[in-house]
């Protein structure tokens, strides 16, 4: 009997530094499987963000550049414009993409840059120790919203997929999650679709992945999955928000 399950070539042997119950590991694997299945590892360049995934290049085995906080879409633009034959993706968290890097992602999407963004939204800053993000839920307690996010003071959480889908330039914008197997299969399809659009030189593509951060949410991994499904997915509804014509 042949081997039916193996580690993707694009995934390294390193043990990740991610916390128990964190979904970065699952998302890394889906990206790695996609790179393998499309046979593009030898011409793929990833851009690591500032945040928990800054060391993504230790786990994903292809060329990588490391960006400053929020600037990954500008770096991806630079690479893709001078080397359109390369496959380029950014891997960014919500503090990185939706706060300090909001300008870069909107303009890259609006120019229709032919790269792919994996946007990991866990409603909090992870690496810096659990501060409020633009995606933090109303009332959600963080180290910089200890009484809960007060929307009167700081506004409502930003829905990135909907925001980017409102741009008039054609794009593939979708929101997924990976908290349970049924969602993981859909997320995998979406990530592969996003890379395929890039491979076909069709459009900008972004997959928002609603994710967990049990450590900074102060929950067990099981509680975190439950809270994601009940609270985050009610506000950040999964689905395709834009498909290129």
């Amino acid at each position, binding site marked *: 009997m042949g081997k039916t399950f193996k580690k993707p070539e694009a995934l390294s042997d390193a043990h990740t530094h991610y916390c128990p119950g964190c979904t970065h590991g699952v998302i890394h694997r889906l990206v790695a499987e996609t790179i393998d299945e499309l046979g593009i*590892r*030898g*011409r*793929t*360049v990833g*851009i*690591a963000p500032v945040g928990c995934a*800054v*060391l993504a*290049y230790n786990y994903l*085995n*292809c*060329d*990588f*550049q*490391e*960006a*400053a906080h929020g*600037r990954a879409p*500008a*770096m*991806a*633009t*630079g*690479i893709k*414009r*001078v*080397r359109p*034959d*390369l496959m380029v993706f950014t891997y960014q968290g919500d503090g990185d993409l939706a706060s300090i890097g909001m*300008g*870069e992602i909107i*303009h890259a999407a609006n120019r229709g840059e032919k790269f792919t963004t994996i946007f990991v939204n866990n409603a909090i800053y992870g690496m810096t120790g659990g501060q409020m993000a633009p995606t933090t839920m109303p009332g959600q307690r963080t180290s910089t919203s200890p009484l809960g996010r007060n929307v009167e003071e700081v506004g409502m959480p930003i829905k990135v997929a909907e925001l980017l889908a409102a741009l008039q330039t054609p794009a593939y914008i979708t929101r997924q999650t990976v908290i349970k197997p049924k969602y993981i299969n859909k997320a995998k399809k979406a990530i592969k679709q996003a890379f395929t659009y890039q491979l076909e030189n069709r459009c900008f593509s972004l997959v928002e992945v609603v994710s967990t951060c049990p450590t900074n949410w102060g929950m067990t991994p099981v509680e975190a999955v439950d809270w994601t499904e009940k609270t985050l997915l009610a506000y950040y509804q999964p689905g395709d928000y834009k498909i290129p014509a």
Partner: protein
Amino acid sequence: MAKVLMKGNEAIGEAAIRAGCLNYFAYPITPQSEVAEYLVRRMPEVGGVFLQGESEVAVGYMIFGAAGAGERVFTTSSSPGISLMSEAISYIAAAQCPAVFVNIMRGGPGLGGILPSQADYLQATKGIGHGDCRLLVMAPASVQEAVEMVMNAFPLAEKYRNPVMILGDGLIGQMMEPVAFPDHLKSEPTNKDAWATNGMDHRKSKSRNLVKSLFLDPVQLNDNNLQLKAKYERMRAETVMSESYNTDGDYTGLIVSYGTMSRVCRTAIDMLKAEGIEVGMLRPQTLFPFPEKALADAVSKPSCTHVLSIEMSMGQMVEDVDRFVRGLLPVSWYGKCGGDIPTPEEVIDVVKERFA
């Protein structure tokens, strides 16, 4: 070699193409927007890349991305725009990528003005970004020299795997002069397979490359900083450039001046000579590394009693001049930084008042 009459900013754009750089990202800012207006037409003619970014912050990282992927790339901006790019410049220096930045300086601080200035000397030579990073900084005094410095900048950036800055004042960008683009300054990009993210398939090694600046291990970070320091020391030993004027005979004082200001000083020196007053001049062509040995030699002349740094700033280069004169002679500064360029008559008055 045929000469053409060109505006400095347009000549800078053409020089990059002639040097073999076909990738340009930029954001509009006076007084250098003509570079982008020239290249948006010219790049398609040579199969190159032109992109107007959404901000200087973003452009800095477009440059980083393209440089990290191993392609020759450059941008042009002016003082406030360079401040916004300085974050990216620190990252590019840390990750040891070659790239060329042109700063056509305007008055500051803040929004300042749009007229010529040399007030970014300290920023360019000492404070371009956070951390222990330095740029190789070249300062042209004519449109022809700007062309040659731009053409030289790309191989130098690749030699040192470090960003290079052309620091020109607004006049260099705005004035028209006859220029030639020397064929011998065209260069082939170096092979970057050892480090660039140009795709594994593309490389013999078939192993992946990382372009990064994060070193969480203190020993590794210190090692990276030692590597950078060694590189800056190599620049000091190999790439310092300066020009002397009227220093063959005796002179009562030495002017140190660069860029457009040095041309005014040259006129003043000729006028003083006609009056029988001999003044020498040292014109740094590289500001980092600073021509410290040439300065030490020039001030060692027994007839020289005073060193005068003349700049379109409130006294920035004078700090380096003072440092390298090492207390051997009095050092003073004269300058303006509002957009008015000191006239030869003003320079003559200052020379007479200070030491002649």
